[in-house]
């Protein structure tokens, strides 16, 4: 990927006990690389949430022994990527009550998929082809108590990844059966 002056790679062995150390290693690198730039505590906090969720997902869902973590950064963007050759992304589609697995089998794109809905906001995935999807949140209202207990439970991880990132997306590379989860943070937005 072009335009990123700083690049850091590390392997994560999918071990629960190693999550915290790996998160701290990544955050330390970001803080060190950003020295002198006003990256902001908010971005650090959000990045920490994202890395934690990505590593937890690797352990819970990927069924691999390790994955590759890459951090790229320039003056305006921070990008965190998790790459593995494990199970491709699968989601429970709440609007049709069925499970979908990547690569998608569909004749028409873009395809909008409602992942979760709690009465006050919906988590959507928009697939622009069979192998790429971007997640976003649709705010619906602000009731006193959203119906979070209905169906959001299974999707807290995706919700955190989507809301904490400025852009959260997934790529599936069929030739190599590689999964790439990418989270982007706009540093100029601080």
């Amino acid at each position, binding site marked *: 990927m072009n335009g990123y002056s700083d690049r850091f790679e590390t392997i994560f062995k999918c071990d*629960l*006990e190693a*999550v*915290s150390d790996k998160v701290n290693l990544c955050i330390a690198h970001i803080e060190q690389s950003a020295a002198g730039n006003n990256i902001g505590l908010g971005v650090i*906090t959000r990045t*920490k*949430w994202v890395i*934690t*969720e990505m590593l*937890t997902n690797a*352990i*819970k869902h990927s069924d691999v022994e390790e994955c590759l973590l890459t951090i790229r950064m320039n003056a305006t963007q921070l990008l965190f990527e998790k790459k593995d050759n494990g199970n491709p992304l699968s989601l429970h589609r709440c609007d049709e009550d069925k499970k979908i697995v990547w690569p998608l089998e569909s004749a028409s794109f873009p395809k909008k998929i409602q992942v979760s809905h*709690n009465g*006050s*906001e919906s988590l959507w995935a928009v697939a622009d082809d069979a192998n790429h999807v971007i997640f976003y949140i649709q705010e619906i209202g602000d*009731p*006193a*108590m*959203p119906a*979070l*207990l209905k169906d*959001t*439970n*299974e999707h*807290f*991880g995706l*919700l*955190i990844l989507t*809301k*904490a990132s400025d852009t959260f997306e997934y790529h599936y590379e069929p030739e190599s059966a590689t999964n790439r989860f990418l989270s982007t943070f706009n540093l100029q937005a601080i």
Partner: protein
Amino acid sequence: MILKTRETNRVVMATILPVEASLANSDPFKEEMISLMVQGARLIIVSFENVNYIDSSFLGSLVVALKYALPRNIDIYLVSLKPDVHNLLTLIRMDKVFKIFKDYDEATATLNNA
């Protein structure tokens, strides 16, 4: 053991002991919370005073505990949340689902005023 508990008149003060509330301890946390309710708690005040960060798995267990509590007229309050933990709950709107107080004293004051 994930929780250190103290019970007075079916009100349980439950302090989460680990610094990281995560997938590593989310299942035992859920089991201990449900066990407290089975034993007769009418209110569990969960203190996050030791917790530096929380992940989606632990949040899931917290919600499972609340789902167990609600039909049984049991309350779950959260207290002493550090900013990062509170901000994550706010991010996914869990702050509107749980009753959150600054500390144990503020939480128990609501009982005295009831």
